[in-house]
């Protein structure tokens, strides 16, 4: 187990390093940082002065190592647009994104698991078809379109929830539903498949033969089995949610990391964009790592293969 952990950690570290290289070069090659840094009203001489004083005339690889060195000490530079330290900005916003992602995941689990179970138990029945319908719609509906419709009905017409912002928990309801709905189908499918398999397994049959009630069998034995892969899927989906909330956060003006990313992208704020990208990548890697470790711990066979 320890060996497996170390190996996975090393991979995670390498991936993070590789992403940092990629994002650095990608962003640097798509725009002139000196012009952005010199700011409004800068003359050509000013721009060249900034280029030299910030060491932007050095080879990219040297600049990258320099950036990496300072990043290792926690110095990620300042935002070009807001002028404040990047980490300060991110620290301000990350909480909202975490809340949103967790709420969306919760919504997806709360909708996906029961529907998955029910559609496995009543295969081919009404609930099974309903669940399929929900999955199909969820995968086809553009999430920004869905968001607009929800805003129209629940925020403007019915006024149950606010339209935009992030001040209260009510502000998170619509965005979590939109984001959560989109990731519900995979949960539903994986639970359904697991349940179908489990219901055919020997010990479940034995249990039923022993006269245990159907509900008890389903909940106690089959579900426990079917839920194992859900853990791993949750980790992966949470990673996607953190990175995928940019459109939804923008629509709901929800003051999180995605909204900050959108703002910094439109303002050509290179340092912020770069750090958010790296942060999301690391989070994703760590979440999948944790999911894998939990899986390995539950199911020892994985460790061997």
């Amino acid at each position, binding site marked *: 187990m320890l060996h497996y952990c170390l190996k996975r950690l090393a991979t995670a570290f390498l*991936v993070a390093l590789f992403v940092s290289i990629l994002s650095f070069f990608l962003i640097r090659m798509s725009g002139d940082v000196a012009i952005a840094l010199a700011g409004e009203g800068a003359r050509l001489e000013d721009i060249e002065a900034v280029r030299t004083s910030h060491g932007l005339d050095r080879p990219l690889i040297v600049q990258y190592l320099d950036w990496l060195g300072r990043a290792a000490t926690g110095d990620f530079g300042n935002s070009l647009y807001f002028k404040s330290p990047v980490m300060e900005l991110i620290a301000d916003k990350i909480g909202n994104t975490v809340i949103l992602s967790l709420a969306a995941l919760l919504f997806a689990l709360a909708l996906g698991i029961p529907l998955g179970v029910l559609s496995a138990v009543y295969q081919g029945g009404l609930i099974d078809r309903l669940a399929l319908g929900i999955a199909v719609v969820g*995968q*086809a509906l553009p999430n920004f379109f869905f968001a607009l419709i929800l805003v*129209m009905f629940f925020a403007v017409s019915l006024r149950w929830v606010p339209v935009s912002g992030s001040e209260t928990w009510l502000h998170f309801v619509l965005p979590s539903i939109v984001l959560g709905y989109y990731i519900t189908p995979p949960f539903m499918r994986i639970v359904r498949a697991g349940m179908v398999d489990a219901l055919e397994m020997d010990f479940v049959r034995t249990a039923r033969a022993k006269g245990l009630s159907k509900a008890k069998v389903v909940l106690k034995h089959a579900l426990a089995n079917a839920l194992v892969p859900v853990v791993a899927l949750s980790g992966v989906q949470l990673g996607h949610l953190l990175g995928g909330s940019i459109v939804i956060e923008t629509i709901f003006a929800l003051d999180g990391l995605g909204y900050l990313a959108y703002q910094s992208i439109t303002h050509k704020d290179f340092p912020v964009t770069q750090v958010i990208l790296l942060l999301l990548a690391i989070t994703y890697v760590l979440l999948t790592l944790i999911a894998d470790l939990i899986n390995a711990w539950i199911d020892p066979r994985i460790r061997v293969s």
Partner: protein
Amino acid sequence: MTSAFLSPSASSAGAFINKVLSHRGLTLGLILLGIIVFMAVFAPLLVPHDPYDQDLARRMLPPFWNPRANPAHLLGTDNLGRDYLSRMIYGARISLLIGFSVMVISGLVGTGLGLLAGYFGGRVDLFITFIVTTRLAIPVVLVALAVVAFIGNSLLIVILVLGLLKWDRIAVVMRAATQQVRSLDYVAAAEAAGASVPRIILREVLPNVFPQLVVVATVEAASAILLEAALSFLGLGVQPPLPSWGLMISEAKTMMFFAFWTIALPGSMLALLVFAINLVGDGLRDLIVPKGRG
């Protein structure tokens, strides 16, 4: 995963068509997709107006079910007086072009990596798996937005960016499929007969993993279409005045409370197209990929 891999070529073409037709979801998906493709291909013949022609005197006309409607514009006009029906029909072109091009680019990249990793295994596999893991760690929407915003938005850039980002799932599926085919007898036989590696991969492996490629690439096409719509919605996708459905929603959203159809029409078309592609993908999976995988 014990069942042997079956390729559709095992059955005759006629039998396969019968199988397709007996699969209701697949049939429905193919019909819907067919209609949209037809719309896109024959758009110039179908549209009542040039989708780019603006007439400021005829702005924001309502669609036919409204008493104020103008019979010359069945679905009304947009905020610049452009015919909405014509723009909707031309919109199919943009979405399909995006879906198809991204599918081809990501299909090439993903298949290439998957085949290499699956066939050679060992260090090659380790290296490619690492690349795939890295790619998975990069948030697609954010990178696509950033690249488009920093370099500039255009149809070509959107296609390239999405194509170069969306190959991960294809690579994963191709790798697994190749690993299975690799262990089969006829590959070993070909190797023993001294066939060259590229020949084995192209002649023996690729045809056998192709059905699975089609399935996963279909799903990717659908997701690329949704991504383009989202980028265009944020104003960082294709350039106006191209009639992209996502862009149309973006342009109409300020009036959505008063003219709901202006977002409902392109939104529904997007959903319908993605729905059709997903049905086709799911149907193909049911028919050609063994149960238990997917």
